[in-house]
């Protein structure tokens, strides 16, 4: 049984007030809150063993290196990654995607095709547009239906022997759709294309199995999964990571340097130039420990309850329309009420201590698809409650009465 009171006690921030009211935090898809176990890991690092890693002869450096590498192993286990050298620490999903996009610059040529889904975050569109500009490859879009589900037949029709790369998020940040990535990966491999899956939004809800999915690249940001900001991971199949050139030059990523020639370090260090976010990496590991102790099955079950409860309650509000009604979705509700601007609703909710996201959610193509300026997005986490959803519904009613 999910002990929600005990879980909430782990999150110090949930005790605070905003505008004189208890905080109701429903912006979890933007960033998740941090449990005391993760905060303690950060404090412990800076209090007891802060040191640069991988090159010190002294005790602190060795301790920090051991903990950092232990965190890499936690990520490996969590995502069922075959080899430890396939886990690259990055500053987050955006960094991970750029690393891969940059690497493919030398592998693509004019006439090659790249497919992206119609529901991508800007960070999974712009790097590929830049890649196409550099290489002369063409970017094509996998369309979606009004429920926010990818049109798989259209996808299969787009695939051909010129398709080199396919990019798709595991879960859409604006709509919550869980995409059928297993099918997407299998079909792409059928024409010899590589697949990068942006797992940022899936991370807090779905424990993805890299070996089972047979995905080529997968990206995650720690701050979506109760970890700190500024750290994340790139999973890449070893063969691909060997093929891609290093992204940034600097310390850590070299084997030998002379002014004539530098040889690069082996994986994963080849892609980890400079002093990494050591504390962040360790805290990322602590966050995965925390989530796994709760159990992803229990988390998903509880969040589904919250989603169903909130969907029913919100739809009872006259004129409210939900965007993103896919059969398989995470606990995210994007909505508008008639022609009231999402920004106005968000402003009133903020005065009531309720944090939601408003705007285009860095996914302008989706908003253009629905012909709306943006939406109000409430995203629920396992530490939220039905009482908080009641507060949201009451707040939305109040905003509607004030604004219409």
């Amino acid at each position: 049984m999910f002990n929600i009171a005990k879980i909430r006690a782990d999150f110090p921030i949930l005790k605070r007030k905003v505008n004189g009211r208890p905080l109701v935090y429903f912006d979890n898809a933007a960033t998740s809150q941090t449990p005391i176990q993760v905060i303690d890991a950060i404090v412990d690092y800076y209090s007891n063993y802060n040191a640069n890693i991988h090159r010190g002869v002294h005790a602190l450096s060795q301790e920090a290196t051991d903990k950092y590498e232990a965190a890499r192993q936690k990520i490996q286990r969590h995502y069922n990654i075959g080899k430890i050298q396939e886990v690259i620490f990055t500053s987050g999903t955006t960094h991970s995607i750029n690393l891969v996009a940059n690497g493919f610059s030398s592998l693509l040529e004019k006439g090659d095709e790249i497919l992206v889904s119609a529901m991508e975050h800007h960070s999974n569109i712009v790097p590929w547009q830049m890649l196409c500009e550099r290489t002369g490859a063409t970017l094509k879009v996998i369309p979606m239906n009004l429920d926010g589900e990818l049109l798989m037949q259209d996808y299969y029709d787009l695939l051909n022997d010129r398709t080199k790369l396919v990019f798709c998020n595991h879960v859409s940040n604006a709509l919550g759709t869980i995409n059928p990535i297993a099918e997407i990966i299998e079909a792409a491999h059928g024409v010899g294309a590589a697949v990068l899956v942006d797992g940022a939004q899936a991370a807090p809800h779905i424990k993805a199995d890299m070996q089972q999915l047979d995905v080529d690249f997968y990206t995650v940001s720690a701050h979506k999964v109760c970890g700190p900001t500024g750290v994340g991971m790139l999973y890449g199949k070893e063969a691909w990571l060997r093929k891609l050139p290093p992204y940034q030059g600097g310390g850590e990523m070299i084997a030998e340097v002379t002014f004539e020639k530098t040889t690069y370090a082996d994986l994963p260090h080849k892609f980890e130039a400079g002093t990494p976010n050591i504390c962040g990496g360790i805290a990322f590991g602590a966050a995965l420990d925390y989530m796994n102790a709760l159990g992803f099955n229990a988390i998903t079950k509880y969040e589904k309850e919250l989603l169903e409860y909130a969907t029913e309650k919100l739809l009872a509000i006259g004129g409210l329309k939900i965007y993103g009604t896919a059969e398989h979705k995470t606990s995210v509700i994007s909505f508008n009420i008639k022609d009231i601007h999402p920004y106005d609703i968000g402003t009133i909710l903020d005065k009531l201590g309720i944090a939601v996201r408003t705007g285009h959610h860095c996914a302008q193509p989706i908003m253009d698809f629905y012909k709306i300026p943006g939406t109000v997005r409430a995203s629920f986490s396992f530490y939220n409650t039905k009482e908080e959803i009641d507060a949201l519904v009451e707040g939305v009613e109040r905003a509607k009465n004030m604004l219409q």
Partner: protein
Amino acid sequence: MTIKEIQEEIVDEFSMFEDWMQRYEYMIELGKALPLIDGQYKTDDNIIKGCQSKVWVHAELKEDKLVFTADSDAIITKGIIAILIRAFSNQRPQDIMDADTEFIDAIGLKEHLSPTRANGLVSMIKQLKLYAVAYQTQLN
């Protein structure tokens, strides 16, 4: 009335409200009552960048005074613009340039003044002042 007198009047009006709800309800009313910008001026060139909602501002010199008209697709933003226009429109450019904006704080909208806030109140004020500078140069 001078800009300062108008600002004091606005502060007076807002001081009657007991809580944020009443203040926002009033702003929403002001937003709804704002005379709309002429359609021909609702162009991309007149959009103020830095707002999550769209804001259009048009400035026109009538004799020696600068007249602003504006619109937004969000009603609270429109209310804020209505307040700004009331304070700054139909004034001499030099006076608009010299005016301070502390009254925003006094009417309890300080939170909207943060430069990082997505509504761009700061951008709006900056834009009104930029128009004033431009037209003052023209008058000189």
